């Protein structure tokens, strides 16, 4: 590939990237190691144990919360990615009065502090008479994720050469075909990045979820927060380790799966 010649050895960026990865994984490493440590707190190694994992499996409410989190994350991310992609396309291409209005709307959630967003969504749901629960969490998550997806997809759109679309139209493609066969493949990395971002945000969200969650619809961040204050932290480390292994697993098999599709 010619690019290889152009980019050269990339010594500088490689060094930085290594530093970045070490930085990113340092606390992760600490957590994983501690999950096997028999001490309840502190860093001193007092012996290898699997008791925290055993304890973890005993606590069914953690798994319920985990399930909730996954369901909400996946569903809200799919919806948010869809809406966000279309919003990005609309913002980028269509010239209309709606555009600036839409633009402000999309960017707003990015800049509102979560606590306000949480409370105002709560007030809104109450005013509309919607009972709090998983559905309200889902709605709230979609709301803030859409903005992130839109911004991410837009960076991909910037360089988009519209003449490709024109060419496709000239060749007789209808709008839907234009989208699925021409536009989508080109901006797919942006869409995927947006989707991943949305998943991450949703899985992690605490404040907004706290306010719009209903009785019994606890998510993992809420559960962990309550545990961390008064509960046992190595159990959480054990959970995090398992989650990590899980995601590594899913992503490596996922990429093989993806290669089959694309």
């Amino acid at each position, binding site marked *: 590939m*010619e690019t290889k010649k*152009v*980019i050269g050895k990339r010594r*500088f960026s490689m060094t*930085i*990237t290594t*530093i*970045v*990865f070490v*930085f*990113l994984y*340092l*606390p*992760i490493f*600490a*957590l994983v190691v*501690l999950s096997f440590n028999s001490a309840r707190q*502190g*860093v*001193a190694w007092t012996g290898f144990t699997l008791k925290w994992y055993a304890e973890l499996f005993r606590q069914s409410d953690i798994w319920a919360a985990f399930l909730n989190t996954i369901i909400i994350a996946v569903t809200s991310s799919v919806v948010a990615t869809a*809406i966000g992609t*279309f*919003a990005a396309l*609309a913002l980028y291409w269509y010239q209309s009065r709606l555009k600036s209005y839409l633009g402000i709307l999309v960017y*707003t*959630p*990015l*800049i509102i*502090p*979560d606590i*306000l*967003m949480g409370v*105002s*969504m709560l007030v*809104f749901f109450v005013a509309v008479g919607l009972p709090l629960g998983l559905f309200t969490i889902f*709605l709230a998550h*979609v*709301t803030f994720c859409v903005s992130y997806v839109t*911004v*991410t997809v837009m*960076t*991909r759109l*910037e360089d988009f050469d519209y003449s490709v679309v024109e060419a496709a139209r000239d060749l007789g493609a209808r709008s839907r075909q234009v989208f699925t066969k021409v536009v989508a493949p080109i901006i797919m*990395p942006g869409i995927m990045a947006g989707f*991943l971002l949305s998943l991450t945000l949703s*899985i*992690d969200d*605490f404040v907004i979820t706290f306010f719009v969650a209903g009785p019994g619809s606890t998510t*993992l*961040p809420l559960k*962990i*927060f309550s545990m961390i204050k008064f509960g046992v932290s190595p159990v*959480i480390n054990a959970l*995090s380790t398992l*989650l*990590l292994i899980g*995601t*590594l697993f899913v*992503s490596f098999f996922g*990429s093989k799966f993806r290669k089959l599709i694309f």
Partner: protein
Amino acid sequence: MPGVLWLTVFFLIPYIIIIIYSFLTSGIYGGVELPFTLEAYSKMLVNAGYWQILWRTVWISIIATSICVGLGLPAAYFIATSKHRNIFLTLVIIPFWTNFLVRIFGWMVILGRNGLINSFLQLLGLKEPLSFMYTPGAVILVIVYMYLPYMILPLYSAIEKFDFRLIEAAMDLGAKRAQAIWKVLIPSIRGGIGAGVILVFIPALGSYAIPDLVGGADGAMLGNLIARQLTVARNWPSSSAISMIFLLISTLGLLVYLRINKVQNKRRVQVSEIYMKEEEG
């Protein structure tokens, strides 16, 4: 478009609620009551301490964002130009599927008085443990840690679609690689940089769990103040008023980003036009 409908309902309305609240007086026990008043704003703006917090929040966020750019750009470049980009990308994201709080705790374990770093230093003979925690430095470190992927992802996206033949062209014209990268690549991905900055700077401004856990007694940031006014002081209008100022700053940042995008699009068109002319001529 259905997107517009959804967005209107869920974004605009809560937004309006906040704005209205900030102009109302506070009920004794929270909630809001008439009459409309500017009291919340006036009390806040004349207070010197408020500006101090604002300033602290802004400079911490700026430093954190700059570090993110400094680390993120080379990292994104490396990943976007490597064969195994998908693997790297996934590796960047994976730590972020552990819980937010758990990650902060990971750092507390490392930086604490009896934490990893201190234990290690004490092995080397250090007598008194150093205190890394409860300082602005710790806050900046953790903020960078939390938001680095939000910088890397858009940068990656932008670099990945960059046409490296432009670099080749620049080098053919005599530029050294570093120069070419600096003068051709960077301006081209301005949009990506802008997106990354927005996605880091603004959440950084609003952070409150991080300063709460690893910041010192004097480390409160704007987010802490907003949260506190809402819950403890039960002063919803005050909380909303402070948020409005926060929103103003963020909106400014957003407008700058949008402006840069417009300029950048024009520039790119020019560059590719020049390039094409070169090709023909």
